[in-house]
C-alpha cells in the first residue's frame, strides 16, 4: 500500500490546493510580459481550460483509493512503462521544485537583502521545507488554512491600499494583442499555477473520505485562481503600460503605496506573505518528490530521503540558471512544453485506460 500513513480530510484538500495555487501569485509575471493588459483574461481562460483536467485528477484518485500517482502509473501503464512515466514525473517535480526554491532566493537578493549570498537563502529555506516534510502531510494540511488566509490578507490589503491609484482604463483596449501571444499566455498560466496541481495526485490518496473531493478541489482551484486574478488586476490597474518592464510587477505596485506619507514602503508585506506561500508550495513539492522517489524504489519510509533530496534540490536551484533572465526565458518557452504531457495527457489517459480495462476493481482484489 501507499507509503504515507497520514490521513487528510477533503476539506483540508481544499485549503491545500487553494494555498498551493495562490503561492504562484508572483509567477504570473511570466505571463505579464507577453499578455500585458489582457493578463486577467488569460488567467480566467487558463482556469476554464484547466478545470476539467484537474477534475480528472480527482476522478483518477477516486477510482484508485489510497494510492498515489506512482502506484497508479504502475497499475495503469504496466510495470516498465509505468516506471518510465513515474520517472518523468519525478524529473518534473524536482525541476519545478528547484525553480521555486530559486524564486525565493531571487526574491530576496533582488528586493530584500542584496548583499547576502544567494546560496544562503536556498539552504535555509530548503532546510525549513525539509523539516516540514519530515513531519508528514498531516502537518502541512493542518497549517494550510493559515497559509491561505495569510496570502489572501496580503493580496486584499494591498489591493485596498492601492485603490486610489488604480486607473481602470488601463485594461483597454480589450482585444488588441495578436492571438499567438494570448495562446502562449494561456499556456503559461494553465501550466504553471494551475497545471502544477498535478502534484496532488500524490496526495489525494491520503484522503480519509473522498465524498466531497471533487467539490473541494474545484473550489480550491477557484479560490487560488481568484487570488491570482486579484493580483493581476491590481498590477495592471496600478502600473498600466509600465507593467511589462519591472522585474517583479507585484513588488513594484506595492512600492507605490503611499497613504498620507505614513503607510509607505509596504514591500515587507509581500515579502513575508510570499515567503510563507512559497514555503508552503515548496514543502508540498518536496514532499511529493520524496514520496514519489521512495515509492518508486519501494522503500518502507520516505523520511531518510528527505535531506539528501533537499540537498540535491538546493544544488540544482543554485546552478540551473545564471540569472533571472534565463530563468524567465526557459520557463516561458521550454518549461511549459515538457510539462504538457504530465499535466494534460497522462492523467486523463490513465483515467481512460483504467475505465477501459476496468482496472481498479480487478486490481483491488489482488491487493498488495
Amino acid at each position, binding site marked *: 500500500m501507499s507509503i504515507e500513513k497520514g490521513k487528510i480530510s477533503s476539506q483540508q484538500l481544499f485549503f491545500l490546493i487553494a494555498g498551493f495555487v495562490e503561492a504562484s501569485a508572483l509567477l504570473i509575471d511570466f505571463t505579464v510580459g507577453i499578455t500585458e493588459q489582457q493578463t486577467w483574461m488569460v488567467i480566467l481562460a487558463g482556469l476554464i481550460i484547466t478545470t476539467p483536467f484537474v477534475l480528472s485528477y480527482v476522478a483518477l484518485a477516486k477510482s484508485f483509493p489510497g494510492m498515489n500517482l506512482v502506484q497508479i502509473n504502475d497499475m495503469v501503464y504496466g510495470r516498465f512503462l509505468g516506471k518510465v512515466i513515474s520517472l518523468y514525473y519525478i524529473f518534473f517535480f524536482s525541476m519545478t521544485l528547484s525553480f521555486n526554491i530559486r524564486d525565493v532566493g531571487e526574491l530576496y537578493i533582488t*528586493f530584500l537583502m542584496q548583499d547576502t*549570498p544567494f546560496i544562503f537563502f536556498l539552504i535555509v529555506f530548503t532546510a525549513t521545507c525539509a523539516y516540514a516534510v519530515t513531519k508528514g502531510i498531516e502537518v502541512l494540511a493542518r497549517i494550510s488554512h493559515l497559509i491561505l488566509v495569510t496570502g489572501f490578507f496580503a493580496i486584499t490589503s494591498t489591493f485596498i491600499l492601492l485603490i486610489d491609484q488604480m486607473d481602470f482604463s488601463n485594461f483597454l483596449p480589450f482585444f488588441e494583442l495578436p492571438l499567438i501571444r494570448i495562446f502562449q499566455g494561456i499556456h503559461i498560466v494553465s501550466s504553471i499555477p494551475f497545471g502544477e496541481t498535478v502534484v496532488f495526485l500524490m496526495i489525494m490518496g491520503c484522503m480519509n473520505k473522498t465524498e466531497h473531493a471533487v467539490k473541494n478541489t474545484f473550489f480550491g482551484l477557484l479560490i487560488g485562481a481568484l487570488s491570482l486574478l486579484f493580483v493581476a488586476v491590481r498590477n495592471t490597474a496600478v*502600473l*498600466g503600460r509600465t507593467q511589462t518592464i519591472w522585474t517583479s510587477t507585484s513588488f513594484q505596485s506595492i*512600492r507605490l503605496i503611499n497613504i498620507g506619507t505614513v503607510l509607505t514602503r509596504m514591500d515587507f508585506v509581500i515579502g513575508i506573505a510570499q515567503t510563507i506561500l512559497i514555503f508552503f508550495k515548496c514543502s508540498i513539492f518536496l514532499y511529493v518528490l520524496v514520496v514519489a522517489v521512495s515509492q518508486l524504489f519501494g522503500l518502507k519510509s520516505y523520511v531518510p530521503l528527505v535531506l539528501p533530496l533537499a540537498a540535491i534540490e538546493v544544488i540544482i536551484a543554485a546552478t540551473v540558471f545564471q540569472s533571472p533572465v534565463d530563468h524567465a526565458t526557459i520557463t516561458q518557452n521550454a518549461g511549459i512544453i515538457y510539462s504538457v504531457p504530465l499535466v494534460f495527457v497522462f492523467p486523463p489517459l490513465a483515467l481512460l485506460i483504467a475505465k477501459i480495462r476496468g482496472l481498479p476493481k480487478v486490481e483491488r482484489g489482488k491487493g498488495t
Partner: protein
Amino acid sequence: MGKKTNFLIMKLILCFFMLFVLSGCLGEREINDLEIVIGMGVDKDESPDNILLTAQVVKEGIAGKSSGGGGGGEDRPFWNVSSKGMTIFEAVRQMTHKTGNRLFISHNQVVIFGNDLAKEGLQKYIDFFLRAHEMRPTAFILVAEDKASAVMDAKPETEKLPAINIGKLVKTYGFTSHFYKVNMKDFASCLMSPTTAPMAPLVSVIENGEDKEIYVSGMAVFKKGKMVGKLNEDEVRGLLWVLGEVKSGVIIVPTPNEQGKAVLEIVKVKSKVTPEIKDGKIMMNIKIKEDSSLSEQTTTENLATIEAFEKIQEATAEVIKQEIMKAFDKSRELNADIFGFGEMLHKKYHKEWKNLEDNWDVIYPTIELNIDVESKIIKTDLLKKPAAPNEGKK
C-alpha cells in the same frame, strides 16, 4: 521525565545561544554610516559626455558633521556632494571618493534634471532611477530652468532641507493647479507610450538679493524623451481641466456690471473626454463640470443673486474654455500630445489606431475639440452681500 526536561532545557539553552550567532546580518549598515540622500540633481558637465551629479546628503547632527569637506556653510543641515561620470551610476559610485560610503537613496524625494540635459534627452538617464533597488518609484521628477545644482543649493526658510521643500511644493500643487506632480512611474509610463508627451514641473531659482527662493513656474514638455518646450501656468491648468486633475485654484471673471472682479475658488471638477472619429476627422468631446465658491468680489454690487450667478457662471465657463484652448494651441505648436489623446483613441478605436499611430505627428494638429463646460457656484462663503451701503433703501 527527568531526561525529557533536561533535553528540553538543553534545547532552550541552545536556542538562546543561537540568538547571538544568528543575529549577524550580512550587509548591515548602521544609521551613522549611512549617507542619506534626500534629493538628486543631474546636470551636464563642462566636459562633453560627462554628467555632473549632485546628491543632497542629510547631516545628522549639524555640529558633529564638520568633517564633510567643502560642502558650503557650516550651519547648513545638508551637504551637496557632487561627482562626475559618464552615466548616473558611475557618478553615484564615484561619489564614494568623497563620502566614504555608498549613498543610501531610499529616502530620495526628488530628482531634478538640469535644462541642458533635459533638452538633450532624459531617456538614457532615467533608467538608473527606475532600476536601482533603493530608489522609490514615488520620487518626484522635476526639471530646472537652469542648473539643477543651483536649485538644490537654495536654502528654504521654513524647511531645513531644500529637497524636502521642493517635494512639499510639488505635493501641494492643488491650491492653484498651475503645475502637477509627476513621479518616476508616471514619467516612465509616458515615456513608454508611443504618443503621449511626458511632462515634468519646471523649477527655478529667484534671486532676491542675498536670498534665493525656489519657484515652480510651469511644466516642461518632452517629446521622445527630449524637452521641446514649456507650458506656462494657465496652459497647465488648461491641460489639467481636460485630465480632470484640477484640485483647486482661482478663477477671476468680470462682474456683470463690469466695474469689478468676481473671484471664484474652484471646489470640485469632473471631466470626461470621449474621442470620436467621424468621416476620418478626429473629434474630442470634452465635458467638464466645475463647482466653485464665490471667494472675493471687488465691487459693491451684490453678486449673490440668481441673475448675477448665471452671468458669472457663463463667464467662468468661457475662461475655462479659453484655458483649454490655450493649452491645446501650445501643444499643437510643439506637436506634443500632452493630453494623451492618442492613448484615448487607442483605447476606444484600437483597429483604426494602427493607421493613426504612424502618422500621429501629422494628425495631432488636425484634431478638433468640442468643449462643453458646465460651471456652478455652489456657495458664497461667509457673506451673502458685500459690505456696502444697501442699494434698496433709495
